[in-house]
């Protein structure tokens, strides 16, 4: 199970890459595997202000629906159109081409390290 050490994580199985005041957000491989093949992704609109912990979208697989939570607070600056068009990118490359949206951060939510996330999913 891939858990890149340079990323931060949430207990809702999302990852965050903080670059300056921008946070790029996706779901972890663990979450993508658990959902199964993702066939539809509903992402927050660009310009929308989101607050950490709130539901901002959905990822649907053939079998189930997963909610997307905002891992940070701020304004959505980009939603990954490639993922809207080809949701399977979330399964095939969850930490790369399968990223979901980016946020201009006003405050970080409760993020955990790769080690802590690995421990969480091992439970």
């Amino acid at each position: 199970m891939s858990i890149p050490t340079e990323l931060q994580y949430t207990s809702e199985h999302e990852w965050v890459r903080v670059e300056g005041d921008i946070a790029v957000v996706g779901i972890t491989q663990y979450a993508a595997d658990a959902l199964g093949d993702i066939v539809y992704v509903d992402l927050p609109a660009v310009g929308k202000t989101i607050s950490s912990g709130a539901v901002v979208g959905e990822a649907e697989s053939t079998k189930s629906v997963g909610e997307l939570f905002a891992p940070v607070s701020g304004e959505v600056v980009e939603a990954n159109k490639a993922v809207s068009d080809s949701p399977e990118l979330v399964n095939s490359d969850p930490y790369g081409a399968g990223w979901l949206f980016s946020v201009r951060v006003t405050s970080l939510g409760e993020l955990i390290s790769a080690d802590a996330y690995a421990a969480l999913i091992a439970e």
Partner: protein
Amino acid sequence: MSDALILSPLDAIHRELGASFTDFAGWDMPVRYSSDLAEHHAVRTAAGIFDLSHMAEIYLVGPGSGAALDYALSGTLSTIPLGRAKYSLLLNDEGCILDDLVVYRMGEEEFMVVANAGNRFVAADAIRERARGFECVVRDDSDSVALIAVQGPNSATILAGVAGLEVEGLSDLGYYRCLHATFGSTPMIIGRTGYTGEDGFELYIASSDAAELWRALTAAGEGHGLVPCGLACRDTLRLEAGMPLYGHELNSSLKPEQVNAARAVDLTKDNFVGREGVQAGVSAGAVVLVGLRSEGKRAGRADYAVHSNGRTIGTITSGALSPTLGYPIAFALVEPDFAELGTVVDIDVRGTAIPATVISLPFYSRKAQQ
């Protein structure tokens, strides 16, 4: 992981293959091996192999077996020829559905009834109770019989090449026909049956020999696109094929006529459990099962409400974005006024009204695609 879950006789193979598991009716069964979409497409275009060992196998043996089944189930089983299979229903006294099953006639005085795993004890107890007074023995062999299905257009080619499988007449075996075979020295039953909407076979064998059979099938499948398939794709395959799933489209408060299953009931036979209930019919507003098609990618799912002009007129029982067809499909139980083909309703997809049209079943037919 609960240690109370029952393990399939093929459990070690599934773990070797890296399957993800799900609790299905108390069994720890593979939900997918890699991608449920890839597995789904493999069955539609090549072949898939499924472990269905959770299914229940109940045998009736003796001169009164056929008559016992005629009384216990909705259809007439006593007159089906040797080597035939037939879909039937187990009804309660009210004429509502306790289970749906497939009955195989394996001898003049021998039948195998295959019931859903979740209804194993309901079905076995009811059949045993109803068979009392008939000259036959009822035996629930679910714990010692494994079921492996090979489904998809290449499945006949694959079965023809299985090392150690001795069987006569397999190439001519028609749909819903069955025959005896041996694998090594182990007797087995092969039915040309399935739950995917494709050509395919279901193989019943002693649990102790199931792993060896799985490996032989897998070896025969090399070069023919055979992939191991989990229960996730089985569900989308059967949904596309318009096949009901007990607990979703069928339950103990529904009568056959509400769920397009009246054909499984033979009212011409003398007496059977549920006859009066079926004959009494249903109340005027009783819900009926329909197929729904929507546009876009968002599917209605089990228990989502179906609306018309803001009023709830039904409930989704199963739904998915159809992997083969590319649009969302669903089964729904709706008020009879909304059951006509072409009727447009709204599915409440987590607060968003998604329009859907009542269309004819099945959603997918392999004949229509050819």
